[in-house]
């Protein structure tokens, strides 16, 4: 039989434990080194970057307290007074992705009142298109990611009725494929990241009746490679961020037992940078806050010790979701 190894070979000397204090240092340093190249060149995704870093810290029980006020003040400055949307950083344009990141951070800090909530609600409401889909900003790019952002934002603000939910569900349903997965738009190929967004959307709107659960969960568990890592589509290389997209979706569907948790954990550990802390997409690559959050959050779903429980729908600490009294649909395993 021909072997099809679209996979990586794990290094020999994998540390079989989470290097928590190094990861905390990595994230904290990332936020402090404001004149560093990587930080400076990524201003166009700053608020999302802050959400990745701050959530990772909170999950590792190292949530920030001293800089909270400064962060809240920054987010307030990123809200556009005209549209109500939030931008990635000051002087950039509002976008639903960064509006979500801003809301998630404020919710974590219990500081939602700091911004103009009505403004945010109106912003999201206006982005809904006639067919129920959402554009990412006023320029009209449509994607199922934005449908998920919309219902996450509005549910956190307890204002989901501000949009046409049934129409929104109809659009997401129209993106379902022959394999049970979802793509970015109708007829677009299934992708584990976008499948997570659509299942997350259906978890918040409590519409799992749209799904072919067993077929989808099978497609998802087939994302696990012999190395233990998950890919996002068949015959692609594994990447640590899919540990989250796939695992969280399986968690919502109550099918975490369909994959090999121990092997996944080993793959995740292999993506740790032992020198600087932080996680990279694959072993020996350059680490960053994005992959660090999704690696840590995946370990939380695997019940790894001393990590806070994460909510699979919102990718936020469960205690925050409980405080907000949110109740996304999650099937028992």
């Amino acid at each position: 039989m021909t072997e099809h190894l679209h996979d990586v070979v794990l290094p020999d000397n994998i540390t079989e434990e989470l290097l928590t204090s190094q990861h905390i240092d990595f994230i904290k340093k990332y936020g402090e080194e404001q004149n560093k190249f990587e930080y400076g060149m990524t201003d166009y995704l700053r608020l999302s970057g802050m959400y990745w870093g701050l959530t990772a810290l909170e999950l590792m029980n190292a949530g920030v307290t001293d800089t909270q006020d400064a962060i809240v003040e920054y987010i307030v400055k990123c809200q556009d007074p005209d549209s109500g949307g939030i931008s990635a950083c000051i002087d950039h344009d509002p976008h639903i992705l960064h509006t979500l990141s801003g809301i998630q951070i404020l919710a974590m800090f219990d500081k939602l009142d700091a911004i103009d909530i009505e403004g945010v609600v109106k912003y999201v409401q206006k982005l809904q298109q006639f067919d129920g889909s959402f554009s990412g900003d006023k320029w009209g790019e449509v994607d199922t990611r934005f449908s998920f952002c919309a219902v996450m934002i509005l549910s956190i603000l307890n204002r989901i009725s501000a949009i046409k939910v049934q129409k929104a569900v109809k659009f997401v349903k129209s993106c379902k494929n022959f394999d049970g997965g979802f793509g970015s738009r109708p007829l677009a190929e299934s992708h584990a990241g976008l499948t997570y967004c659509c299942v997350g959307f259906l978890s918040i709107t409590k519409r799992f009746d749209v799904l072919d659960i067993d077929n989808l969960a099978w497609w998802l568990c087939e994302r696990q490679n012999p190395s233990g890592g998950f890919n996002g589509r068949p015959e692609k290389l594994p990447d640590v961020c899919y540990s989250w997209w796939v695992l969280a979706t399986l968690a919502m569907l109550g099918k975490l037992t369909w994959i090999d948790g121990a092997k996944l954990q080993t793959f995740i550990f292999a993506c740790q940078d032992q020198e600087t802390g932080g996680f990279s997409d694959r072993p020996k690559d350059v680490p960053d806050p994005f992959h660090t959050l999704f690696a840590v959050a995946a370990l939380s779903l695997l019940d790894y010790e001393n990590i806070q429980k994460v909510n699979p729908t919102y990718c936020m600490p469960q205690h925050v979701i409980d405080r907000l009294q949110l109740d996304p649909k999650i099937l028992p395993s």
Partner: protein
Amino acid sequence: MHGRLKIKTTAQQKAEKELKQSNQLTQYKASMSQILLHRNCDPFDPVSFKICAGLLSTNPDIYTLWNYRKEVILREKHRYEESDPAAKEDGDVDLKAFDGLLEKEISLTEDCLRANPKSYSAWYHRYWVLMLHSQPNWQQEFALCTKYLSVDDRNFHCWDYRRQLVNRIGITLPVEIKFSTERINNNFSNYSSWHYRSTLIQLNEQCIEEELELVKNAVFTDPGDSSAWFYLKWVVTNPALGKETCQELLDTLEQLQELEPDCKWVLLAKGWLMKRLHVKDYAVELYTQLIHLDAMRKGLYRDLLQNCIENS
């Protein structure tokens, strides 16, 4: 930071890199300030517009810069329309000069896509610009798409773009189905082609046998490749496929299993067929074998086994 290998450097290399990066960062910040300062200039500031193009060519994900370009383009459109109000009323504006601006924009997005063929923003901007063009050359777009698919036949942005174009240039469904057959025969292992085909084919009694032949050919040629098996599942779980054909396929899979005793996909497919044919007492042996062959997913097979026992 996807797929960027960490490289060991000496202290000197590190210092040189840091200096270079520090200059680059200062340059980036100055460029951004210049653009944001002149963002609302009317008529637009050509220097800022050019700097903006340079920044996007190296990083097409700076979304605010695309928005700036769209604002300039809309203002220019307005200006051309205003310059000939009579023609505007007739809906007959000579947009040649405006199209010239759009052409340059189209070529900018091509530069960006060469640097990053997976940039959502660059693909979207290209389409947005073409929609404003008085005579968009969709054929040329189609050729570009074909070219990009030949470089990376899994680029889903490209497949999505192709789908949008097919309708615009009036390509018929049979022609597109033929294209998907060619792509599949060219590379059985390309999941994107199988997906694309699933969006073109409506499984029914007329076509299902033909689909089965195509996918059977693929899985028998290379049973270890997962792509075609997902398509096979879609076909064999459809009620339009007759029981007789299911039985024939099951027999053929038995033969394949003799040749490929360790191929889990063959066993899985047998499971789908036996369920459809209401074969009794197959589950224990089949799923025990799968648990052994594919231990990572033993939880799945245990659940499937449990279901079979409960339903029998």
